[in-house]
């Protein structure tokens, strides 16, 4: 019983927002895993970023609902791209999660609606800033050339037990 999508690329917008929501759900989960390996300042940073992704998830959920979309539900667990056993791999995971979040927000920038383009550009920017803070270095093209997040259960190596 969802209302018909808005004229002017409504379907594409909903698809792109859903992709962003999925990436945010994955990030919320991933920060939970990564945060367990941190202490002190890094733990505080991870908590801050985790909250930021929760807020983004809520924003996207509201935007999708307003457009008649049905927000994708978060999975109970997500496959991780590599084993996270210590602080170093946890940092790598955080940076990768942010790269993927940047990529999906870049998808919003390709839409025709100016407000979604701006929203997407802001999302790319904040994700790139968080990625750079974790990685300690910068990328020339945040959001480009990023491996897409794998669907739950399809990652090459899963480390959950």
């Amino acid at each position, binding site marked *: 019983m969802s209302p018909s999508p808005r004229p002017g690329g409504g379907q594409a917008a909903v698809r792109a927002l859903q992709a962003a929501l999925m990436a945010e759900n994955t990030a919320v989960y991933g920060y939970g895993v990564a945060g367990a390996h941190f202490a002190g300042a890094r733990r505080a940073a991870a908590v801050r970023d985790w909250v930021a992704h929760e807020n983004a998830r809520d924003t996207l959920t509201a935007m999708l609902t307003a457009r008649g979309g049905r927000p994708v539900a978060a999975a109970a667990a997500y496959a991780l791209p590599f084993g996270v056993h210590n602080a170093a791999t946890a940092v790598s995971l955080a940076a990768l999660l942010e790269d993927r979040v940047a990529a999906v927000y*870049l998808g919003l920038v390709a839409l025709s609606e100016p407000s979604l*383009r701006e929203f997407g*550009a802001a999302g790319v920017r904040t994700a790139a800033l968080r990625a750079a803070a*974790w990685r300690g270095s910068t990328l020339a093209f945040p*959001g480009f050339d990023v491996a897409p997040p794998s669907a739950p259960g399809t990652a090459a190596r899963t480390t959950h037990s």
Partner: protein
Amino acid sequence: MGDGTPPRRSARAEARVVQEATRRRVLIATAAALPLVIGGCKGVGALGTPPKPAADVAVTRDAMTLESTLIARYGAVLTAMPSLAGELSPLLAQHHDHLARLRARLIIPRTGAQPSASPSGTPSPRPAPVPGTRAGALAYLRDAENAAAASLLAHLDAAPPSLAQLLASISASEATHALVLGQGRHR
């Protein structure tokens, strides 16, 4: 590996040279014929009037000018303070990547279309003077990065989707440069 190998190989090489030359001639002939074919499809008028540049060309050129200005500023700082090369070189290299990716979107006609306007892709003529201290120089670059990041987003709505994405990505990259220049805070 027989005795006759060297002469045979050279003969083959010769044949290849001839073949190559012939192929090149064919290619040249094809290239020459191409405008006629296209012209034939669109009518005679298509040959005479060059198409006017699309809006995205102007946006791309503006972005290239921004990148060139940043590159010039990094160059000025590095000239004044070579000791910063270790920190600045990776960032400068990324600006060259930005410029190259933008330039790749253009097929720049060398027909003197805009002779007086500042040619895109060349360093800006007058970068502001570099502050004398290390902190001042880093702040100078940080301000330039932030300004460029904002300017790139100002073009967002005028751009076709793929260019809008490139602008947003480069803008985000420059925001991260400003972060790194700000405090080098690592987690």
